[in-house]
């Protein structure tokens, strides 16, 4: 199994982004998804910057893809998407059907991100006919469904599973980070910059529940599939996705790297838990349960 680095979900300072990829370029992850997939107002890293980062990573032998915006609203966003899909340098991860349309019309191969709803074999085969090369299992689907889909997978299509990170759960017209500061989206003052791992939303009894990340809502708990690695491998999963977080990403990738090489999972898992956000882990979706549940006892 190869390791991929998903697009950075958060709004980071430009230098922080550059440093992040410079660091990870030395590590064992083979695939990098670059670009802004959440909010088109986040422009500290320009389109040309992303191309530059992509070229450098490619020089280091990495596979590079550009991720498309997930929720498209403004005409300007569709304009940017057209440019992205017209690029001849990197394959695109489609995070909205509009991207699939633009790419397949040009005869370009593509990858689908977790927000493209491929829930059954018929959808998978249909998109394979449009140029799908790899798909990310939608995060709310579990191993039972993955097993069914893997058994009917079209030839030449790879499967990727979201293996670590806060789960992308919802997208809205409204910016919740701005709202939490009593600001409208049109005057958000880029408050997301203050929350490099998103802003915590707690229940009224203090339970970490969700994380506000601009127009995106995430899980507060960090989804992690380390203990399911043997099963994912047995199911023929090709790629495990690590979603960037502010700290410890390099070490997390090393842990997954050692795990895929067959190292003892238990101590790695214990170390990994210490590196996740203080809210703790979850893996319920993979076990066909509530996404926020956590259970390592069912592991292989």
């Amino acid at each position, binding site marked *: 199994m190869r390791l991929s680095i998903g697009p950075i979900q958060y709004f980071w300072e430009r230098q922080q982004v550059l440093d992040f990829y410079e660091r990870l370029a030395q590590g064992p992850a083979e695939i990098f998804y670059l670009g802004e997939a959440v909010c088109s107002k986040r422009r500290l890293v320009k389109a040309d910057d992303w191309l530059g980062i992509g070229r450098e990573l490619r020089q280091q032998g990495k596979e590079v893809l550009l991720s498309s915006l*997930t*929720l*498209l*609203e403004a*005409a300007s966003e*569709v304009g940017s*998407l057209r440019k992205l899909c017209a690029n001849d340098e990197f394959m695109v991860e489609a995070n*909205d*059907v*509009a991207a*699939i*349309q633009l790419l*397949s019309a040009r005869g370009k191969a593509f990858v689908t991100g977790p*927000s493209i*709803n491929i*829930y*059954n*074999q*018929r*959808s998978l085969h*249909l998109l394979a006919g449009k140029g799908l090369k790899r798909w990310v299992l939608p*995060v*709310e*689907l579990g191993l039972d*469904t993955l097993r*069914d*889909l893997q058994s*009917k997978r079209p030839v030449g299509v790879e499967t990727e599973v979201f293996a670590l990170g806060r789960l992308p*759960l*919802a*997208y*809205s*017209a*409204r910016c*919740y980070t701005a*709202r*939490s500061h009593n600001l*409208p*989206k*049109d005057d958000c003052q880029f408050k997301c910059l203050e929350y490099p791992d998103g*802003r915590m*939303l*707690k*229940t*009224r*009894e*203090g*339970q970490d*529940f*969700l994380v*506000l990340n601009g127009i995106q*809502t995430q899980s507060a708990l960090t989804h992690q599939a380390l203990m399911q690695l043997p099963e994912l491998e047995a199911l023929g999963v090709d790629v495990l996705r690590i979603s960037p977080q502010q700290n410890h990403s390099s070490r997390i990738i090393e842990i997954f790297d050692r795990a895929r090489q067959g190292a003892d999972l238990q101590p790695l898992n214990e170390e990994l838990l210490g590196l996740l956000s203080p809210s703790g882990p979850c893996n*319920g*979706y993979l076990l*066909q*349960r*509530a*996404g*926020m*549940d956590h259970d390592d006892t069912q592991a292989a």
Partner: protein
Amino acid sequence: MELVCPAGNLPSLKAAVDNGADAVYVGFRDDTNARHFSGLNFSNRTFEQAVRYAHDKGRKIFVAVNTFPQPEGFTRWEAAVDQAAQSGVDALIIADMGVMDYACEHWSDLRLHLSVQASVTTAEGIRFYHENFGIARVVLPRVLSVSQVAQVIRESPIPVEVFGFGSLCVMVEGRCLLSSYATGRSPNTYGACSPASHVRWEETADGTNTRLNGVLIDHFGQGEKAGYPTLCKGRFQVGEHVFYALEEPTSLNTLPILPRLREIGVSAIKLEGRQRSPAYVAQVTAVMRAAIDSCLQDSKGYHPRDRWMQELESVSEGAQTTLGAYHRPWQ
């Protein structure tokens, strides 16, 4: 502008038809539709009666088969498509491309509408479904401002339907997993959000707690009216503040902007609420019928009457309404 009204059972369907719906949309009694609630929706027998009633009165009937089947249950969705097609309904409302593919292969003459659950917000996205499956109409998610809706209509190859009234999803539909994160069941997989099976009402010394699979969604003091714990409409703590961090309990209401929706070329107005009572369906259908007729008659002289607004507010979540994303400052 066609008026498309919800019905969760036969009395509601009759109420919609009798109060001026141009079309009524319904679902079957399983997880093939996005209002999969116990005791709701149509059995084989009541479905046949529903089709007959609507058609006898010269109205259309649409069937929502708008959830996302996984391999194990796919035949249920096939059966839903087959049953709707065999009964001669006027359109299927579909979200999943696999189900569309099946419908196209087996029922090539069947008219297909793209469900809001398909989550399409651009003309390019619409083109994908139109070119591949012959989709004839699209229902837009409740995330676009009016000017963005106008832009989509200008470029769309097919007519556009928008939501006009009812409970408000604040997340883009079809890509919201909040409910399955908390309960294991989502609109996509199960056809319900914040399902009643996981709700707990808890009396406390100082009021009522509402929980969803144990997660505290809200707390209501003595004398405060406790609302259903819809996940995105609870009060949570962010920073130092406790507030409706995502959205207040409120319903979408487009009465104030009907002339604008007409002007930009909206083809159909959809009312939400298949889970609501026949009385609700009768009331909102009658109000929207009167409003649309008034708007079509004299768009410039149109204004939403106080009585209409009051009637709609009385059946709204939290007894209040909003223009939602249509109105830019809401965002």
